[in-house]
């Protein structure tokens, strides 16, 4: 089980050793070609040393963030009733990862998965291909791995329960995007038999989903905002948050985060 950790070490050590072994040969050749100019060889060695040092520093500086969490439990009934959009479609691509700066100033990395819809069961998508925002990705030396985010594969067909928060207060932005409601709980993969199975449990999607009365209901756009307000009121009553925090959270529901475009 320790194998992957060792492998990483070995790969880096091996690369560094390889470069260290090759370097003198390269330098020697250069030196043979220009025997008269030892200074040039020294300069070359110096450059190589600098490159290696920079490379090593960069590797050592890699920032790996691992995100896990305890998900709220959502039943199929919850997913049907509260999703803003329930749709079948195919993953057609992914965006470059980007930062979102929260209303408090901290940054986190997100990546959009492009989902081209072929059949809508509930709600109206804002476009034929929609952005499904997923936390995680890599930018420069920063990598964020989110264990709870379902891994959507390009070319694969899915049935997704999606929602649009429609309120601020954290990392939510005001542009058009969806999140997967319940994360793995709301992600169903189309199998070769044409049926949809949960991405995590492999449980088949109940056939009753396709005839649920919730599919004909109008989407309650303010549902998640009301839920947040109700949670803050509850948390004030149970003593989980103070009066001051309550005021702050309620006030921030209309304050949105900033998406930072990649250059």
């Amino acid at each position, binding site marked *: 089980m320790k194998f992957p950790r060792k492998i990483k070490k070995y790969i880096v050590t091996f690369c560094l050793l390889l470069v260290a072994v090759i370097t003198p040969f390269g330098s020697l050749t250069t030196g043979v070609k220009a025997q008269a100019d030892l200074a040039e060889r020294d300069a070359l060695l110096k450059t190589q040393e600098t490159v290696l040092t920079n490379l090593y520093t960069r590797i050592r500086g890699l920032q790996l963030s691992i995100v896990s969490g305890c998900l*709220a439990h959502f039943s199929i009934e919850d997913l049907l009733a509260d999703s803003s959009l329930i749709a079948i479609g195919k993953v057609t691509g992914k965006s470059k990862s980007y930062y979102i700066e929260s209303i408090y100033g901290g940054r986190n990395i997100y990546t959009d998965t492009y989902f081209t819809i072929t059949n809508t069961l509930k709600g109206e998508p804002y476009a034929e291909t929609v952005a499904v925002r997923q936390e995680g990705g890599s930018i420069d030396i920063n990598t964020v791995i989110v264990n709870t985010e379902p891994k959507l594969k390009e070319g694969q067909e899915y049935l997704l329960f999606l929602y649009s928060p429609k309120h601020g207060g954290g990392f939510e932005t005001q542009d058009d995007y969806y999140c997967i409601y319940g994360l793995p709980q709301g992600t169903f993969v189309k199998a070769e038999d044409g049926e949809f199975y949960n991405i995590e449990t492999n449980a088949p999607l109940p056939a009753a989903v396709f005839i649920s009365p919730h599919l004909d209901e109008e989407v309650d756009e303010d549902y998640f905002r009301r839920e947040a307000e109700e949670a803050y009121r509850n948390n004030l009553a149970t003593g989980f948050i103070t009066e001051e925090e309550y005021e702050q959270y309620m006030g921030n529901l209309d304050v949105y985060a900033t998406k930072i475009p990649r250059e």
Partner: protein
Amino acid sequence: MFALFCMLFLFSSVSMPAKAYTQDGQKHWVKDTIYLRPYSGFTDLTLQHMKSSVSQWDQAAGQLVIGISNLSHSDNNASFGSGSWDGVNRIMKKKSDELYTGRTHVNADFFTGYVKEADINLNANKKFANSGQKGCYDTYSVFLHEAGHVIGLGHATSTVPVMYANLGTGVEKRTLQTDDKSGAHYIYQVWDKQ
């Protein structure tokens, strides 16, 4: 002979249930004890629950891997987790998205997997109480789960352990199950010592 073999097979199947614990997807573990600093806005009862939670994990791991610092921090607006590492292991109650009851961000060394920093957030966007009262998430249960992520455990594949991925409202999961303990024991007494 065949009957004996069948009996042995049956016995082994019953007495050795398949493990349900997992190590977190990107393996990490604690080398030097992680002391978490709670936000000063938590109540004394919640703090007691946090201390009790980490104590359970330490016992299961067979060593002091995680603790609650006597120092608190007063900034619940401080940057949390990924991309915002500041050297302080924080416990917070910030607003997170509606999908999580709690979240753990771990900053691990890319090569060794050692935890350099860890932050835990109890999502103020969900209903919490210091009990499993109807309609609320129990702070103790959520924190116990998150502390398991800090020490390197992923989600369990069966529903009984504390480390199962989902938690419902009105549910108290305050005691580590055999599978949770086995996971912590494995990471710190078997895997890390290989």
